[in-house]
């Protein structure tokens, strides 16, 4: 057998990563609806801030778990299998891992804006906040669906 860092915990880490993603997709979608409300003149500011921090923390934890399981995945799944037999899944994973970083940045951006703006007064900030939330939610949904498809092909 190979000896990759945290290889023996690969499945546990992946399970926790998936659990984080489940929470994240729910929180992100609710956050998306709150931000959509801001654009329509419905300002649930307190709820928006709660979802912003929930998403940021959950995203950070899920991201970290993914980063921990990545070396095992890179060699055992992608290196030995996907790059040889399921190239589409390998490419999809490459897109997923890079978009995940973009999602992290937009989650942090939305968190900072949610704490510093008054959406009923700051028209510009309201649009910027909505842009970050929309981007982050799209990334989360894309990554969740991609992750499911990839693990159907091969997993740690």
């Amino acid at each position: 057998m190979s000896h990759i860092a945290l290889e023996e915990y690969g499945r546990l880490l992946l399970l926790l990563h998936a659990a984080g993603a489940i929470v994240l997709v729910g929180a992100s979608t609710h956050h998306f609806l709150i931000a959509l409300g801001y654009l329509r003149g419905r300002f649930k500011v307190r709820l928006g801030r709660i979802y912003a921090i929930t998403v940021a923390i959950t995203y950070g934890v899920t991201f970290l778990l993914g980063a921990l399981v990545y070396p095992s995945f890179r060699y055992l799944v992608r290196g030995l299998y996907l790059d040889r037999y399921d190239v589409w899944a390998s490419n999809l994973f490459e897109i997923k891992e890079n978009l995940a970083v973009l999602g992290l940045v937009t989650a942090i951006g939305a968190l900072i804006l949610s704490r510093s703006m008054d959406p009923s007064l700051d028209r510009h900030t309201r649009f910027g906040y909505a842009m970050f939330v929309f981007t982050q939610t799209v990334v989360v949904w894309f990554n969740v669906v991609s992750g499911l498809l990839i693990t159907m092909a091969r997993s740690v």
Partner: protein
Amino acid sequence: MSVALHPERREHSSNVPIAVETAAMVFCWSFSFFLLHPVPTLLYFPLEHRWGFDGTPQGLAMDWYGRTLASLLLSAVGGTLAWVLMRRRSPVSPEIQDGGLGATVVSLVFVVLVIVVTSLNRHLVPEPLPPWYLPK
């Protein structure tokens, strides 16, 4: 329950969006740069359990950690600089705010396109199969 910001805090944070947008744009452009140009970056060698800056790595090497770390650091530096420069100034004009928002949208679209295009145009080299490996 009212959650409106105190006027002083609101004035103090009026240019926060510019700083956040600057950070996002710096991330988008630096991440795109690292994807498009094979500059030496921090690499992780999972089979050797080591980190390194090897320009032309031999064997399995992962550049995602280095690319991510470098882009996030640059983004944080860019955002902090923008915040330091803008925090004592009066709020920027709506035209500049709209320009910043538009530039951020363009940057986000650009980095997504770069991610997709570079991911689909890789030259895949599967790892040699070890003797113990049994494909399912």
